[in-house]
């Protein structure tokens, strides 16, 4: 995502996939803390199978987001005594999500303008 000095944030074509993953994960986490596997399952269910995350590719994205402080990982025991990591959105993540949503809205508006259709 690009943030010009004046003007709304924009999605860069060359970073489409990365920005898309980031926006989807942040949006899911905005609803509350999730475990990694729950994120993958929920994304698939909510998008009715349109978006699918292989768990193997999910971890690098999650860990990167955690590293840059957009999400936070906490370890939980719960009743099972099994160590599980749960992710939640940080304040920086919330701000980023708001910008992502704006950037994607602008992206689709421009996209459909170019191909001559109205934004659905």
């Amino acid at each position: 995502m690009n943030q010009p000095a004046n003007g709304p944030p924009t999605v860069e074509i060359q970073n489409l996939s990365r920005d898309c993953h980031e926006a989807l994960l942040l949006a899911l986490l905005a609803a509350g803390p999730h475990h990694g596997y729950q994120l993958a399952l929920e994304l698939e269910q909510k998008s009715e199978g349109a978006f699918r995350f292989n768990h193997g590719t999910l971890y690098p994205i999650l860990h990167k987001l955690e590293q840059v402080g957009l999400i936070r990982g906490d370890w939980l025991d719960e009743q099972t005594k099994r160590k599980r990591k749960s992710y939640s959105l940080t304040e920086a993540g919330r701000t980023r999500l708001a910008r992502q949503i704006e950037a994607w809205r602008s992206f689709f508006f421009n996209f459909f303008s170019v191909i001559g259709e109205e934004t659905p």
Partner: protein
Amino acid sequence: MSRFAGVLKKVSDGLDLPQPTRSRILLEMAGDLEDLYEHHRGQGLDEDQAARRAEEAFAVSDEALKHLARIHERNSGLAERVTRQVGTWWEKVLLVIWLLAVILVSEAVVTEVHFFVIISPFVWPIVGLALAALAFTLWKLYQLFLRKPTDPRSFRSGLGALLFLAAASLAISVTGFFYHLRWYAFQVWDGGPEKMFGLLSNWILAISSLMIIGLLTAIFTALVWFLLAGLVARAENRQAAVLLAPA
């Protein structure tokens, strides 16, 4: 023991990272694999089908593993890279001999009658740092052996503070050394050559005790950091070993 030891072993082999970092990633994946398995079981699949579905979902490509390693490479600090080097018995023996030597030298120096004749005011902050290091070490030992926290990262968290305390002790010693050097130089300048010998011996007594206490605190603190980091690495490795053992 994990029913997914095969998948986890593949991930472990493909991650070129220090063991503690690798263990944390494996722990996370193991938890998620088990939960996904339970999810599939809840949907009516039998044990084999549920396990197979979970394993398929966790198929990690070499590219993804390299990406994951690149992300964590920058976070695998000096501590993890240095402490994993001490593994063989002779390295441990050398470490213990070094520690004993430092303790014996400290004991011999500090119990010397004239050692505390002139105490520099810079010694007190160093004593404070040493006490802080001691309190932190006791807390970490309690955490490692009695409390056993859930988050594997909390074993390691704050360990770097010991290195900071060691560096601060060194910095205070050096600052004190130059402060006293300057102070006695002015005293000699004002007092004339007849007072020079007395002032010089006072200066030597003040800075020798300061430097010895400062250096010993730094060495001790660094050694304790090294030993604790080794214990933490062992605890993390044990967790990983449990995961990689076949069910």
